[in-house]
C-alpha cells in the first residue's frame, strides 16, 4: 500500500502510555492535535465494572491520513511515547 500513497505512520509505545500510565490522566496529545487524529478509547472485552480501570484505556492514532505532521504531539507527550514517521 506504500506504493499507492505516502503514508504517515504514528506509533504509540503502550509500555510508556497505557500500560503503566492511565492515558485519561494526561490527554495532552488529544488537545494539541489540530486535526484530532488521536482517539481515547476503551480496550476490548471490558466489563462495565472495569470501566474505570486504568489498564483498560488506550490512545490510538485512528486517522493518520489526516495528520499534518506538525509533531506537536511528540513534543507534548511527557512520556515520549509517540513516534511519527513517513
Amino acid at each position: 500500500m506504500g506504493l499507492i500513497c505516502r503514508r504517515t505512520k504514528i506509533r504509540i509505545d503502550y509500555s510508556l502510555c497505557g500500560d503503566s500510565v492511565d492515558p485519561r490522566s494526561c490527554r495532552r496529545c488529544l488537545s494539541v492535535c489540530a486535526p484530532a487524529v488521536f482517539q481515547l478509547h476503551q480496550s476490548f472485552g471490558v466489563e462495565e465494572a472495569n470501566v474505570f480501570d486504568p489498564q483498560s484505556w488506550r490512545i490510538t492514532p485512528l486517522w493518520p491520513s489526516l495528520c499534518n505532521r506538525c509533531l506537536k504531539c511528540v513534543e507534548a507527550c511527557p512520556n515520549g511515547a509517540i513516534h511519527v514517521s513517513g
Partner: protein
Amino acid sequence: MKHGAGGKWYLNARHYSEEIAAKYNLREFLLEQYKNFEQIPVRRVAGVSPAGLGYKLRIPIIGRLIKRTAERLLASNRAPKNPFRPEGHIGQVVPLEDAIAILEHCAAEPIIQKNCMCRYMSRGEKEACCINFGVMSEIIDRLPRFIPEKEKYHLSRREAIDRFKEHNRKGYIGTIWFGPFPYINNLCSCATPECAGIRPRLDFGIHSIYKAEYVAVLDSRCCSGCMECVAACQFGAIQPEPRDGGVRIIPYRCFGCGVCRHVCSTQALSLLPRDEIPALRGSY
C-alpha cells in the same frame, strides 16, 4: 417518512415514540451499546478496522467497497441487531428553528443533557452538549460517566431549548440522529473535526450525515466584509470575495446549519429551503 429523502422527517413525532422503542427492544439494545460506547469507534466493521481509514479508502476497488459497506450500514433500515455496530445511526443537520420545533413538540420525556463522547474521546474534554430524549435518558441514568458533573442533568423543554440556543450561538452545529433507525433520541451540538458523525462525511466522503433542509444565502448589499462568518463556518462554505471585499457562499459545501447567521452583525445571511434552489434540490 424516509431519512435523506427530504421533507423534514425529524418533525414526525412517531420517530420519538415509546411504541418504536418497545417494538425494537431498544432499552436493551441501547444499554449494551452505551455500556461499551468508548470501544465502538475502534471496533472492526465487516473485518475492517477503522484505523488508517483514509489510506484504506484510497486503495482501488477495495476502498470503494469499504465506503459502500459503511454507507449501507449507517443508512440501514432494518431492525437493529448488533449493538457494537453503528447500524442505522444516521443524522441530519438542523438549524436552530427546527431544533426548537423538535424540542417543543416531538422530543419524548424525559429530556437530559449528557457529555459529548466524541469530544471526550478525540479531545479529552467533557462538555455537556448532547440533548437526549426518551429511552436514551433512562439508559444514561445508569451510566454515570455520561452525566455532567457541574451542570443540570434533567432538563425541562424550556431549559433544553435555552441550552441548545446557547450552543448554537457558540458556533456548534445542530444535528439530529437516528439511534438506531427509526428511533430518534439525540439532538447534538457538534464541532468539527471532533464529531465522529461529521468526520466520515467531511474527511472521507462517507455519507454519515445529511445536509439540512436549508441552505445559507447572502444579501451582499448588507455585507460589511467583517469576515466573522468565514471563521464561523465549520464546513468552509463561506469564502472571502476579493472583488467586492465581501464574502461568497459556496452552495454545494453549505450544510445549512445556520450558525453563520449568529455572528453576522448586519443580518446579511439567511436560510432558504433547499427545495427552492433547483440546483440543490435533493442534494443532501
